């Protein structure tokens, strides 16, 4: 299996704070990966490192087996849509397509035009006057017209209303399914990701908490409901992520490494959303208590 993005102990620092630290992960080819984490978790930093806008302060990042920083060979293979889908607001959509043709060696202007025509986006109006959803579609069309082998999207739907969000993700999935493009999509809107992604990277407090195929991860994690549980280990459980107790009963969210045969426990499947929330809750908030001078 080809690895498209590979990072090894990758770190990026702004001043004294690390935006991303000890990040080691790999993204196999052909996957649609979700990069999940709360605001400020380092998602944008990771994407900027992958697209070569930033230079790592620690570790390495490799995209298609080369370092992407200021590397136009790699850049030609990557389509990138930055946060808030920035566009030159006084350019028309048609001019933006011309711009892409001037700035890229490989450029499928027909594809971009076809997409925008299907979506009913006017070619001769300044994109600044279009709606947020339309702008996001223009930005996506520009990224796809590069015919990239890797598509990086930084919160592309964060500012869109639910309908536009669904349309955007649908058209995204439609076009990457045809071309087999690898996608890395950052978001904090979990419900959307569940529909479209088959690979998951959870980033929290500038570190990778979880990475893997969605099906494998969902199969690996279980919710156990059983009698009030102390701290004694349960056979087949590798780690307890979250535990809640009532007087008689305990509910555990666990990562398993074998089947759970213990008859005292009822095993439930988990949803992707449960899983993500459990891992996000794990991150520490200690430092902020110190900074505010209040007890944790």
């Amino acid at each position: 299996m080809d690895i498209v993005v590979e990072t090894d102990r990758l770190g990026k620092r702004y001043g004294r704070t690390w935006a991303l630290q000890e990040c080691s992960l790999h993204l196999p080819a052909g996957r649609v990966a979700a990069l999940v984490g709360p605001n400020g978790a380092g998602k944008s930093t990771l994407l900027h490192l992958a697209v070569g806008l930033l230079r790592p302060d620690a570790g390495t990042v490799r995209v298609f087996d080369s370092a992407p920083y200021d590397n136009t060979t790699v850049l030609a293979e990557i389509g990138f849509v930055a946060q808030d889908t920035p566009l030159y607001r006084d350019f028309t959509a048609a001019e933006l397509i011309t711009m892409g043709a001037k700035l890229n060696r490989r450029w499928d202007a027909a594809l971009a035009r076809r997409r925008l025509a299907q979506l009913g986006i006017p070619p001769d109006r300044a994109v600044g006057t279009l709606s947020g959803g339309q702008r996001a579609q223009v930005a996506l069309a520009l990224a796809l017209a590069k015919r990239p082998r890797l598509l990086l999207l930084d919160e592309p739907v964060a500012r869109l209303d639910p309908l536009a969000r669904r349309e955007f993700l649908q058209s995204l999935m439609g076009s990457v399914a045809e071309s087999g493009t690898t996608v890395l999509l950052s978001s904090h809107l979990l419900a959307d990701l569940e529909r479209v992604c088959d690979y998951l990277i959870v980033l929290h407090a500038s570190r990778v908490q979880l990475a893997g195929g969605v099906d494998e991860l969902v199969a690996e994690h279980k919710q156990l409901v059983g009698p009030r549980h102390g701290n004694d280990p349960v056979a087949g459980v590798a780690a307890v992520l979250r535990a809640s107790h009532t007087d008689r009963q305990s509910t555990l969210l666990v990562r398993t490494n074998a089947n759970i045969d213990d008859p005292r426990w009822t095993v439930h499947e988990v949803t992707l959303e449960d899983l993500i929330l459990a891992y996000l809750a794990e991150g520490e908030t200690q430092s902020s208590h110190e900074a505010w001078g209040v007890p944790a």
Partner: protein
Amino acid sequence: MIWMTWRQHRKQALFTVIGLTVLAALMVPTGLAMRNTMASTGLDECVRLALDSEKCNTASRQFSNEYSSLAFVGILFVILPLLIGLFWGAPLVAREVEHGTHRLVWTQGVSRRQWALVKVGFVGGATVAAAVVYGLGLSWWMTPLSHAGLSSRFSVLLFDMQGLVPVGYTFFAVALGIFAGAIWPKVLPAMAFTLVGFVGIRVALTVLARPNYLPASTRTYPVFGLASAPERDKYDWILAVGVRNPDGTLVVPNGTVECNQVVEGPGAPCGSEFGIEAGAYNWQLYQPAGRFWLFQGIETGIFVALAAVLLVLAVRAIRRIA
């Protein structure tokens, strides 16, 4: 990249051309009028032959009555390079970053270095071209004013408005703006930085450095026994004048004293109230008029060199922005 640069800056280019056209519409008629007046009053003859007749003095007075106020219009041009620096230089990088579009354009297939070189080349070239046009135009316009002897073209503001130096100033202002925007990628702070930096460096160089580009010449003539000061080129740039006693002490700063010793009158001897002793002399420190173009060249060179350093630093800084 060139298409892109043109598409992004064509509006600015249009406004600049309109601005220069408006200025030309103002300057060409007044410039021609001044030349006509010089010709009709015979003043240009006086200037060419360096005549000093009653007729010439009248013509000169008439000319200055009519046009001396125009010299102040020229002062507007001292700020023209600054305006170009503010509106062309400062937003070049800063606006991209403020709108986030640097992440769009720097993730296409063009390297950031190439992006920066084309942008800087195009904008730098356009502004230098504009500066050459108005520098030469203004030199043409100023010629009658300085020929009529209203002021030396070497004097501080007039020197700054004509010849080569506007090109140097403009190039420097644009480079400073680009640099400020790359270091501090927000439009308003970058403009403020450009404003303060440009005015600061210009004033510092004008006041501290320019008088010392070459060692100044001195001229002396005695206080006593001379009818008037010796012939001197009225376009010299006088840096300091004074009266010194024979031992060299400055007794009258910022003044000249001329006494006709032949006439012995009652009361104190001439100049004794200043402490002038026998054998005292008038003293002048000046840059000769003939050094005008040399000084223009030196000053332009300094600003072009500063601009080049700033541009190199700016291109480096651009590679660190994300």
